[in-house]
């Protein structure tokens, strides 16, 4: 096992994870639930559910429905608010023995700043993940993180205040993703989590109703993997040498390796953890099997090593080749 840990360790701009497999935001419970179901010290890091300034009671039920190889969900970011979180949940999460990444979301710049302040100097916090898929109440836009300047402004403010690494979780489906990624990193973010689930809707024709009590939701699960790999591929080439964490549809060691090849430094696992709480560990074991089979030492040996031609992304003979 020691060998495994040695070979899988990854440094994400400051925090060193024993394995590059984390549990995604909102899929790890509140600290106690996973005990006995998975060896948490073998999990690279746990991302907390997303925390807001005030308590959020969240969406009505049903909060989850199934789609082809995916789930449509909306919890409405149910959480106790930052103060109760820091007082009760954070210490519990830390006891798991794994790194704790705290996910935060605000509706205004000020809220993000105050959330970061509330986490300052808390030894249990290994890193902060900035949730940017929610509405922008100041600029009255449906998705704050979909806009280059705004995403950079918010992530930058959090990064400047934070003593720990800051990862911006960018919406997977933002049209200008590589551009947003570049701006966010220039603004000071340590790295990027690619990415937040795309908006979705489940409809139940029989009842003429939405499948979720909150009507709309987000898409998660294996259905997303090709979009995740593509977003990671584009982003990692736009901001080389920046830690990129892939999330969206990762279920097996092979999926994780695919993400590394596309440019990811680590992966997060959400839906797969809900289905099999031991998934983060078996995924890590799958990565080890792959590295062994290929005679490689660490995930970094495959990172961004997807074999594409030198000509790639350069005009070259494309014009000639058309007809």
């Amino acid at each position: 096992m020691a060998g495994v840990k040695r070979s899988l360790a990854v440094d994400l701009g400051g925090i060193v994870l024993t394995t590059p497999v984390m549990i995604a935001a909102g899929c790890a419970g509140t600290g106690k639930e996973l005990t006995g179901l998975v060896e948490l010290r073998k999990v690279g890091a746990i991302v907390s559910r997303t925390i807001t300034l005030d308590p959020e009671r969240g969406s009505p039920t049903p909060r989850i429905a199934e789609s082809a190889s995916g789930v449509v969900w909306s919890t409405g970011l149910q959480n106790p608010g930052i103060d109760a979180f820091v007082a009760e949940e954070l210490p519990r999460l830390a006891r798991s023995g794994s790194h704790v990444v705290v996910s935060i979301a605000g509706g205004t710049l000020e809220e993000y700043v105050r959330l970061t302040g509330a986490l300052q100097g808390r030894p249990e916090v290994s890193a902060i993940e900035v949730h940017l898929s929610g509405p922008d109440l100041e600029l009255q836009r449906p998705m704050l993180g979909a806009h280059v300047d705004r995403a950079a402004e918010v992530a930058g403010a959090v990064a400047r205040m934070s003593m720990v690494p800051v990862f911006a979780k960018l919406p997977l489906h933002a049209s200008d993703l590589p551009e947003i990624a570049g701006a966010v990193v220039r603004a000071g973010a340590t790295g990027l989590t690619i990415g937040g689930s795309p908006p979705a809707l489940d409809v139940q024709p029989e009842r003429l109703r939405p499948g979720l009590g909150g009507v709309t939701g987000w898409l998660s699960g294996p259905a997303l993997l090709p979009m995740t790999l593509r977003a990671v591929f584009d982003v990692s080439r736009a901001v080389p040498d920046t830690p990129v964490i892939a999330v969206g549809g990762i279920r097996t060691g092979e999926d994780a390796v695919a993400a590394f090849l596309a440019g990811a430094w680590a992966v997060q696992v959400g839906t797969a953890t809900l289905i099999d709480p031991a998934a983060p560990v078996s995924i890590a074991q799958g990565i080890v099997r792959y590295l062994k089979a290929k005679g490689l030492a660490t995930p970094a040996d495959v990172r961004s090593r997807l074999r594409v031609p030198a000509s790639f992304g350069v005009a070259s003979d494309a014009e000639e080749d058309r007809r």
Partner: protein
Amino acid sequence: MTRLRAEILSTRKLGAYHSLTLVAPDIAEKARPGQFLAVKMPEGRAFLLRRHFAVHQASRRGGWAGTLEFVVDPLGPGTEWLMSVKAHEFLEVIGPLGTAFAYPKRHTNCLLVAEGHGASSLYFLAQELLARHKRVDMVVGAETLDRVFKPIEGKRLSQTISIVTADGTLGERGSVMDVLPEMVEATGTEVLYAAAPSPILARIAGFCKERAIPAQVAVEERMGCGLGLCQTCVVPVARKDGSGYDHLRSCVDGPVFNPARVLWDRWLSEEPTMLPTPPEGLPVVRSWPG
């Protein structure tokens, strides 16, 4: 709570239902009435999430020691797949999960009210109550004959039983609500237990409140994990201090709840109260539904 690969000892057709018995000593040892199992679905399918089933029988002693039985009510792809699995195949299950029915300390007269597959967990409860020298009476309802769960066993487990079907194919025609008052009178009910679709539970809750009958109900809300990880299975429950309510996870804080504290109208109102991305023009308000 244990996670294991359990061999299927036997499968049985019970009217419209299907019962599966697993070899799962670690779970059988701990399982109590009201608790449930999370059953993994097969690989390579388009549907992913575990399916959840109340424990119908957990044998600790005798010839069946170490076995665990649950009952499947066919509905969609997951339950249909479970109807097709055969003895000696294996299922990946986690359990026992959630809260169990509490046994009465002072009281003796227990009325168990089940609709459809809800009877699965209540028959297990009946055994445990009888073992504790309580009086057990039952109301068992269903749409039709073949959905009345094991009527013979129901009779065996109860002092008196009232069976009702919507179409009158077995017992009286009607719903459990029609016979509830007279059964409560007749049996001198001191404690009521129920497992049924939530709209019926809501009416039972109202009834118990009126009559001031202490009760416990097992709810079913859609679950992403069943393990307390994802907050999808919540039910609105009033705070003890009356300062409002919380969305409690029915997989860890339930599925057994005190019906008096569940905000049934809020839970079951089909009026969504969250706000989606508004169409152009409308104001963007605080909400996180995507």
